């Protein structure tokens, strides 16, 4: 069995592919930023808000973490119009990704918040800070620093999962690839190109997040050491 690879017809669509790449980047970065902001707010509510609000956050997190992303996407795109909320495919994709990522990130950040030693909170209390101030100034930065690797992985997973948005005809990288495949009848080549591009995007994001972590959390490596040292029995 011999297969003759012919990339020419696929590569001739490079402009179209580039559009797909840009949309994938836009959806990923957008959902990472918006999802993180929501996750931090949710973590704060969970830590300091009334119990019932924390409960609602928990319900939200479990709901989104235990249902398929595809179904969440369909609900937003096909379901919401029934109650008068009409979104374009791109808007629906960004919203679905944001909400999904917010849930996973909230859960990851919770682990970070839980890992902050009680003595840090007591130091804040002793300095007359309010609970909110303690969360904002004492807890959240070291908490995120501690879970930054897990958070970064989740962001990369979201980038890859953005391909699912092609199901509602969003023309991100997978979406344009499917169209190019239909135009050229070059399935193998089309998806080989898409695979390589996803690989490049994911690795770039991973490296970028690593660098960003170094930049905003210069003390990451020292955190655990400081916590344990000299702790009373």
């Amino acid at each position, binding site marked *: 069995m011999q297969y003759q690879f012919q990339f020419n017809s696929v590569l001739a669509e490079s402009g179209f592919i580039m559009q797909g790449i840009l949309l994938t980047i836009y959806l990923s970065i957008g959902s990472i930023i918006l999802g993180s902001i929501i996750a931090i707010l949710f973590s704060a509510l969970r830590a300091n808000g009334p119990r019932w609000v924390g409960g609602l956050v928990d319900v939200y997190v479990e709901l989104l973490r235990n249902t398929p992303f595809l179904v969440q996407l369909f609900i937003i795109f096909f379901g919401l119009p029934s109650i008068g909320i009409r979104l374009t495919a791109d808007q629906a994709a960004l919203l679905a990704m944001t909400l999904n990522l917010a849930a996973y990130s909230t859960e990851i950040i919770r682990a970070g918040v839980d890992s902050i030693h009680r*003595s840090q909170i007591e*130091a804040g209390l*002793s300095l*007359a800070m309010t609970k909110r101030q303690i969360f904002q100034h004492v807890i959240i930065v070291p908490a995120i620093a501690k879970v930054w690797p897990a958070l970064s992985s989740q962001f990369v997973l979201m980038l890859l999962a953005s391909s699912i948005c092609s199901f509602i005809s969003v023309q991100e990288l997978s979406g344009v690839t499917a169209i190019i495949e239909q135009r050229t009848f070059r399935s193998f080549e089309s998806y080989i190109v898409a695979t390589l591009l996803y690989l490049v995007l994911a690795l770039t994001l991973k490296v970028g997040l690593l660098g960003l972590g170094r930049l905003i959390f210069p*003390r990451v490596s*020292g955190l655990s050491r*400081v*916590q344990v040292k*000299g702790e*009373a029995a």
Partner: protein
Amino acid sequence: MSAVHIENVHKSFGKLEVLKGVSLTVEAGQVVAIIGRSGSGKSTLLRCINGLETIQSGRIEVVGHTVTYTDEKLRALRKDVGIVFQSYNLFPHLTVGQNIMLAPRITKGVPKEEARAQAEKVLAQVGLSEKFDVYPDNLSGGQQQRVAIARSLAMQPKVMLFDEVTSALDPELTGEVLLVMEELARGGMTMLLVTHEMNFARSVADFTVFMHQGKVWEMGPSEELFSHPKTPELAAFVKSTLK
């Protein structure tokens, strides 16, 4: 009016009664050391004074504040009462300067420039002026503890509480911390300190309190208390620390 007035305080953790009717008065400007065996309730007493622990009965008054467990009352109290812990508890993601300026700025609304000047002053007081922009994990334990003291001082407290602040330090680093505390005492700060450094208690504290089984077992002028213990328990304790 006394700086600290503790009256018949009882405190339990579940079924375990840790403070069994503690009374103690500290006048402004006095330095009082609290000594006693592990588990006798020294840390608990100190933590009750700034409301980190809740008492079941009794009364605690500190520089005009009655310890009351509402967030607002506790914050007002804590603005006037500094506490330094054995484990320093500096904020690892902030520089030394930021550690010191944070609380005055956000809890008292001190303007940035003023907070900075104040931070430089207290940092000089603990002999670490050159460490303003350094992160805590680049400091030795002794230096971290001095920063923790400076951080407390920046709030301009009227009373300072110290809970075994040298116990986590290597022996060669305890001296620099004790020196800072000694200067603070000489400057007239009202201080309550739990310590295992008997020589320090003896030479610096005006009074020493010996806690035993959740009670103030014996107290008196430090020199007197150490040289002429009245109870066999204190005599045994003093003897055990001399080894």
